[in-house]
Every structure is written in C-alpha cells, then in structure tokens.
C-alpha cells in the first residue's frame, strides 16, 4: 500500500504543478491577490507530495520490496543498508525522483522565505518553477516510472553496479543535483523578471544568495565526483574530460560567471540583461547535462535512436525550455534598463571580463562535448575529443582569467586605478615569478606549462594574502589598528578571498598532478621491490578476503623511503558475485606533497605474481583541499546576510588615499 500511495502522491504532485503553473500566472497578469497567493501553498503542497513519494520509494528499497520493478532491477537483499538507501538515486528513475524532489525543495524554500518579494514576482517565479517540475514529472510518470510493479515478484534483485557501491555515490549525486537544480530557481527568477519587463531591487538582492548556494553545491558535487573517480577507477587520474564530467562542468563555469555578474546587479544596478541571460544559460546547460547523461545519447547516438522515448522527451523539454526562454529574452531583454555607469577599468569591468572568459570557456567545453556527437549522428565517423583539445583551448582562456583575478579586488567600483592596483601587487608578482623560476629549476625537463601553472597558483594565493593585508593596513598601521580592521571585514569579503585562495591551491594541485605524475605498471612477485619516485614499494603478496556482498583479493605493499617505513598499502580487487563484475579499490596514502597510490590487478604466472600499478601523484591532495576551501569561501559569503552596497568613488584618480579601501567587496 505504501508503494501505491507514493505512486499516487507523485501523480497528484504532477496535477498540482499544473495548477501552480497556471493560476498564479493568470493572477499576476490580472493583479489578483488571491490567485497570486495560491503559488505559495501550492509550492509547499508539491514539495510535501513529492517528498512523500520519494519516501515511499526509499521504503521499498529499505524493505527490499521486489514487487517494485525499479527495486528488483537495482537492489539486492544482501546489500548493506547504506547502499540500499543510496541505491534509490543510483539508477535512472530514482535519480529523476531526486531531481524533482530537489526542484520542489527549492520551490518551497522560495515560498517560505520569499515574504519580502513583490507578490507578482513571487507568483511568476513559482509558476515558472512549477512548469519545470511539470515537465520532469511528466517525464517520470510517462517514461521512467519508478513505481512500476511486477507480478510475481522475483525472490531477489539484480543488485547495484559495484562501482556505485561506495560512500562517494551516496553523496555525489545529491550534491550535484542540488547544484544543477539550484540553478533552476535563478532561472525562474530570470524568466519572471523578463515577463515583468523589470528587474527590481528585491530581484537583484535575491538572485545572488540563490546562485551562491547552487554554486557551493555544484562545486562540492563536482569535487566529490572527481575524488570518487580518483580512488575508485584505479587509474590515478581525477579528471578525464569525459562528456559526463563536462556536463556538470559547463553549468559550473556559467554559474561562476553568474555569481560574479549578480554582484554587479546587486551593488551597482547594472548588467541586468546580461545577468538574466547568464541565468538562462546556466540552467540551460544544467538541462543539457541532464539530457546528455539521461538520454543514453552518450553511449551511442544510435542507441538513443533505437529506444527514443526518453531521449526524445527530454529533447523536446530542452527545446521548449531553452528555446522559449531565449526567445523571451530576445523579446523582453532590451527593456531591462540599467542606471549604473562604469568605465572598462573598474570593478564592474573586471567582473565583466571574468564573465566573458568564463562563458567562452563553457562554450568551448560545450563544443568539445557536442562535436563528436554531431559528427557521429551525421555518420561522419567516431572522433574522440579528449584532454589534448581541452588543454589546448582551456589554458589560453584560463591564463588571462587567473592573471586578472588577483587584480580585480584592487579595483574600485565605477572607475578603477590599474597602475595603482598593480603597484600593490608587486610582492605577489615577485613571488609568482620566483615560483615559476623555482619550478623551472627543479623540474627543468618537465613540461613548460608546469612553470606557468605554478606561477599562476602562487600569483593567486599571494594575491589573496596581499589583498587581505592591504585591506587591514598591515605594516602600515599599528598592529592594534590592523586587528581592529581584520575583525570588521564583512564575511562576504572573507568569502571572496578564501574562495580565490582555494582556487590558487587547486591550480597548484592540478599542475603538479598533471605534470609530474609517476606511474609504474608491472608484474610483481612477493618480496619484489619497485622504486617509484623515491618510494620503495615492497610487494608482500596477496590473499583472499570476504565482504558483505563481495569477495576480494587484497594485496599488501610496504612502502618505505630512505629505509624508513612510510605506509602499508592494502589495495583490493573485489568481485561482486551478483553482477559478476570486478572493481578496484586503490590504496592511497596521502602526504603533504602527494599521494602514494597502489592498485592490484590480475594474478600472473605461478609464483604468486600479480599485475600491480603503482603511482606517485604529486599535489593531488591540494586539489581536494582547494575545492574544499572554495566551498568554505562560498559558505562564508552565504552566511553574510547584510545587504552590500558598492560604494562608488567620485574622484578621478583615487590615489590620494588607499585605493584598496574603496575596493572592498
């Protein structure tokens, strides 16, 4: 009965979303208070119904109710409880349920916290949100229904892909979806603003925190996914420029641009049309990502053509949402007037440059992701667009972005002082050149790009510190005064500095791990020792171990450096009998300078030998640290609820006093 109640609640939510989409929209058009007011209870009712439905599905997973087809196909009675629960969203139908659940969560959050929004804006925003929900609920109910039953119920399920039986899976999709779907609310705001033909002060005030929240989730979600790929796939890599990864990276790039342009709207009442445009782009890329991942188009364009129901549905949804919103933008966009003026060299100008570079970057990723698909669909044969392409186009776009990034915070709003800003960054520039030269000296035979990467990383980190130092007048005012200023720095400013610092650390990690990774693949017999980047790996053999729903071969390596034992690594190769598929569990010892990483493969020969893959991955932990720091920065900024007003500078050349002071975030 619980299953069927969940099914009914889902269908009722579908009908409610239809009401929530139409009635408040008519109400806003006619200015009818009661009809507009319906949006809020409807959004909350929709959330309650979808949550009920999701809970019913989860209940079926937890109790192993194999009369539900979705459970029978994706779960197994012997699976640990944690993976029974995370298994709910580890399949197509369940992940779409998670999608709409998060969509409804954001909708009801606007309904609950949006009291200070003008009623017509709120009604229209929630109505647009309801239309998105309507599209996806129809998709679920008609093509991907998780509540389909089978009679008679099988005695056990088919189990979950062992690769997905991992704590990383429990967290990665929810975070990613919170990010993807979080952009929906900004999209709904943007469409509502276009329908109204105006961007209110309240609109500007609202969009930024929502974008920021979505950005935090998306950053964490991509980071978790990359981390999971790193330790689970066992190739020592953490990013593959794989279309599924690109699908989440494109909205991140656009969302980052949106985050920065929304600051300008909020503080300076300009760049409105551009921000609305970015909001549409960011969510469109989320939808596109969902389409790419969910329609099966990536496995093969032809696989998509043989079972087109799902793919075609999302494609139509995509065309309606993206085409409709861009058409609306072309029609109403020009009416969004701006009041703030600025010159190219100014904080606004710097943020606009950031926007242009980030949108170019996401366009490039889009091209690299879709081009092979188009070519394949036109029967132009298979091409693979991989890391060489992305490195070749990405680095030239990112280099000026990072170079300008450290300068931006030193520019004042409206008109800035570039020579003055650069003068303040002399120290950072010196450090960054020193780092580049040091890199060149230490690794003269390494790739040239490593020199550039390390230079940029130090530039950002040093820039963040210099920025903070000049903000508190460090060494130029008494220490007490500096401390007083430090305490007064608004949290949003902390957030910016911390996030930029995290980016610098991330770049260092990316550079180090791609430039100096050491890899050694061989057959090892027990007692044999292999030297990898100064670490001696002694293989001590492998033995069989059992797990709750798998059996494994566990190898044992003793790693030492200069005769001192550093770590004992126990990588596993697991076989899950239900699916008959193996997974590798890399053993990783993290040190400050890098990861010592070991993987055990197939047995080879008769002497107890095994294929082993041993790596030293320099600076990889810095990637995760950098992402974590960026997320912390975002949280700092989000916790700052004050309204920030950009203080315009009226003087021609703001050199008389301290320019950095005016340049506060």
């Amino acid at each position, binding site marked *: *009965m619980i299953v*069927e*109640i969940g099914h009914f609640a889902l269908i009722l939510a579908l009908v409610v979303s239809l009401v929530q989409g139409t*009635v408040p929209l008519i109400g806003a058009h*006619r200015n009818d208070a009661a009809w507009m007011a319906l949006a809020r209870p409807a959004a909350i009712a929709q959330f309650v119904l979808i949550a009920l439905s999701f809970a019913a599905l989860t209940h079926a997973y937890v109790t192993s109710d194999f009369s539900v087809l979705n459970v029978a196909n994706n779960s197994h009675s012997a699976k640990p409880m944690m993976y029974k629960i995370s298994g709910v969203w580890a399949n197509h139908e369940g992940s779409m349920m998670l999608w709409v659940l998060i969509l409804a969560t954001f909708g009801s959050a606007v309904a609950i916290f949006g009291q200070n929004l003008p*009623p017509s804006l709120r009604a229209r925003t929630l109505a647009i949100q309801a239309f998105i929900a309507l599209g996806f609920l129809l998709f679920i109910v008609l093509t991907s229904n998780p509540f389909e039953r089978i009679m008679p119920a099988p005695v056990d399920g088919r189990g979950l892909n062992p690769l997905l039986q991992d704590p990383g899976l429990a967290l990665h999709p929810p975070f990613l979806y919170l990010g993807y779907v979080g952009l929906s609310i900004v999209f709904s705001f943007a469409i509502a603003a276009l329908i109204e033909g105006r961007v209110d002060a309240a609109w500007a005030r609202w969009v930024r925190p929502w974008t920021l929240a979505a950005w935090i989730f998306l950053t964490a979600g991509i980071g978790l996914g990359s981390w999971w790929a790193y330790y689970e796939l066992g190739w020592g890599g953490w990013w593959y420029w794989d279309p599924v990864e690109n699908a989440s990276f494109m909205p991140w790039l656009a969302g980052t641009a949106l985050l920065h342009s929304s600051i300008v709207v909020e503080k300076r009442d300009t760049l409105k049309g551009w921000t609305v445009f970015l909001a549409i782009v960011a969510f469109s890329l989320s939808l596109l990502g969902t389409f790419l991942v969910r329609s099966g188009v990536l496995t093969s364009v032809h696989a998509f053509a043989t079972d087109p129901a799902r793919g075609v549905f999302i494609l139509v949804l995509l065309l309606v949402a993206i085409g409709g919103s861009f058409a609306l933008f072309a029609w109403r966009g020009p009416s969004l007037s701006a*009041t703030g003026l600025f010159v190219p060299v100014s904080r606004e100008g710097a943020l606009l440059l950031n926007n242009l570079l980030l949108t170019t970057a996401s366009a490039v990723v889009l091209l690299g992701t879709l081009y092979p698909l188009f070519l394949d669909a036109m029967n132009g044969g298979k091409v693979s667009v991989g890391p060489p392409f992305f490195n070749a186009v990405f680095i030239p776009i990112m280099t000026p972005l990072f170079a300008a990034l450290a300068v931006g915070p030193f520019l004042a709003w409206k008109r800035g002082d570039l020579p003055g800003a650069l003068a303040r960054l002399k120290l950072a520039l010196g450090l960054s050149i020193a780092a580049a030269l040091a890199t060149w000296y230490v690794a003269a035979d390494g790739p040239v790009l490593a020199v550039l990467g390390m230079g940029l990383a130090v530039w950002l980190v040093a820039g963040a510190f210099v920025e903070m130092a000049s903000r508190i007048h460090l060494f130029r005012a008494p220490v007490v005064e500096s401390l007083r200023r430090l305490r007064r720095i608004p949290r949003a400013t902390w957030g910016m500095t911390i996030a930029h610092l995290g980016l610098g650390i991330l770049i260092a990690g990316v550079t180090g791990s791609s430039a100096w990774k050491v890899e050694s693949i061989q057959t090892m017999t027990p007692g044999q020792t292999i030297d990898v980047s100064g670490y001696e790996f002694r293989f001590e053999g492998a033995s069989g171990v059992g797990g709750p729903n798998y059996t494994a071969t566990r190898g044992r390596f003793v790693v030492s450096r200069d005769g001192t034992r550093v770590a004992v690594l126990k990588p596993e190769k697991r076989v899950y009998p239900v699916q008959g598929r193996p997974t590798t569990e890399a053993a990783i010892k993290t040190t400050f300078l890098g990861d010592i990483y070991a993987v055990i493969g197939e047995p080879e020969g008769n002497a107890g030998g095994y294929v082993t893959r041993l790596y030293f991955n320099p600076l990889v932990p810095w990637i995760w640290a950098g992402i974590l720091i960026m997320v912390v920065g975002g949280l700092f900024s989000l916790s700052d609820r004050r*309204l920030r007003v950009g*203080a315009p500078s009226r003087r021609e050349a703001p050199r008389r006093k301290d320019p950095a002071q005016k340049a506060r975030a």
Partner: protein
Amino acid sequence: MIAFWAAALILLAGTVGLFLWVLMRSRKPAMARAEYDIAVFRDQLSEVERDLERGVLASDQAEAARIEIKRRMLAAADGRDVSEEGAVPPGLRGAGLALIAMIVPVASIAIYLMLGSPDVPDQPLAARQGDVQTAQQGEHEMAGAVAKLAAQLEKDPSNAEGWMLLGRSLRTMERWADAADAMLRGIELTGREPVALAEYAELLVMAADGVVPDAAADVFGEISAVAPGDPRIHYYLGIYRDQHGDARGAVQYWVDLIAVSPEDAPWLTSVRERIRATAAAADIDVASIKPSPDLPKPRGPSKEDVKDAAEMTPEERDEMINSMIEGLAARLEDEPDDADGWRRLAQAYRVQGKIDKAAEAMARAVAAEKNQK
C-alpha cells in the same frame, strides 16, 4: 486496497481543500510594487550607516553611496501612486474554482488508474520468507537433480545423451565452464556432431565472458567445413578476428552472415549493429565489403537444424522442470500431510502460469496444515 484509497482521498481532499481555502479567503490589498523596492533601498541606506560607524566606509564614500541610493529611491517613489490593484473577473474566478475542484481529483485519479496497481500489496522481503524458501528449494532441487545426474554419469560415462543433458542443465544454471566440460564428454561419445559442437564452442565463449578463446575459434573453424550454414560460426569467428585487430576480416564474416541469413532472422539486428560499430571504430567503408563469392547456398533444412538447436535448451529445461514437478506431485499424493511440499508445488505451478493447479495445491497445503494441528 480500502486503506490505500482512504489515504489517497485524504491527500486529495487536503490538497483541493487547501487550494480552495486560499482562493476564497479575502485578502487585504497588497502593497504597491514600489514599496518593495523602497524597503530594499531603506535597508541599504541603514547598511551604509552601519558601515560608516564600523569604519569600513570613509565619510565621502558613504555620502556618495547615499546619494546614489536616494536617487534610486526617488525614481522608485515616482511609481508609488500607480494603483496596481486588480482582480480576476468574477466569472473567471468561479470557473477557476470549479476547474480546480474538478480537475485535480479527476485527473489524478484517472492517471493513477491508468498507471497504478491499487490492488497489489507491498511485498517486503521480510514478509516473503515462504517464497524465498521455495525459490531456494527450487534451486536446491535443481542442483540436486544435476548432482544426481552427474553421479550417474560417473558410474555410466558412456551415456552420451546424459552428458549433453547435464551440459544443458548446467548451462541454465549459468555454470558455463562446467557445462562446456560436460558437453565435450558427450560430443566425444557421439563423434563430434556439428550442432553440439557449436553449442560447446558457444559455452567456451560464455565461460570467457564474451571473449572468443582460441579453442572456441578452432571448433568453429572445424564445423564451418561440415555445417557451413550455422550462423554462430560467422558471428563468433567475426568477433575472433576483431579481437585480433582484423576489423576488416570481422566485418567480412558478418557481411557474409547477413548474406546467407533469411530476411527475418532474429539475429540480423545485432549483427548489423556490430558491423556498424566495428566499421566506425576502424574507419571502414562498409559498402566496400561485398559478400564472399563462394558462400554456401542458403539451405532450408540447415537453418531449421540451427533453429532447433537454438530452441533445444529452453525445451530441455522445461522438460526437466516438468519432470521435477511431476515427481513432487506424485510424492505428495503419497504424503498428503506435507504442507511445505504443497506450498512449493503451488509456487512452482504459479511460476509456470498454471494458476488453477497452483490454487488447488495451495488448498491442499492449507488442508495439510489443518490436519497437522
């Protein structure tokens, strides 16, 4: 089922009631649009004051900020007096209420009745121990029968038919390697008969997880001379060529396979897909590969043989299951008090779709239970 509809009605009534209540409640007129903007600007002004107090802003900057905000405030205040009150005309209002009261219940129940299964209860595994046991029993009995057969064959290893049966039974249990071994024993006794050989080679492929090992390729090569019409020969030899980097040779085999297959052969779709994928990956123009000139003429009987061979396995399996069920039924007639036995029999019939017999067996199970008490 009644409980389900009661819950569904509560959800429906709650939703519709909430909507109607919100729509019919009278509201005080909303603030003018401009007021919302002015409220934000007022907040911003007080924020400037706070920043000034904390020393984050210099006084001239604060003044500039204030002037800018006040300018926006004045602009917003211009629109303050514009009355924005409106209402949906009463006719539309009534129609809207009626529509919501009608459409929400009717649409949701109609869609649910199309897609849902209101009369199917939840079946959590904990409540299905009986089924689980029966299934395990079934597997157990199958395994028992197989073990018995194997033991017999150890005693009488010259029984070719027995080895084949064992091989096919092991095949349904997905014990590919064991199945291949048993088949081979039978084949050696019958003098390498092509249909059985093809089955044996296919088992080798399955045991190797879809990879065509050398041994299997040798067997396919052997039978291609005797029974060239078997589609498996071309299919797997093509895969074998592809494994060894000869995509062109692989496609040639599959093109030939299509040429000798009847129009409606069930394997054509997957063969075509393989050709397309392999050709695309190796950058081969499929049109350039023509069927070989010396292909065996499509022979009716040969293909019939093949079809029989393909269908042999499930039939054999059914036969085996049937004999097991008959054995169980016969035993139960002798020991009618074995309630668990009757339950197992009922389950077995249910799986076979023989609902009448299942019901009958179930009734016997209940009766047996009563007798025991």
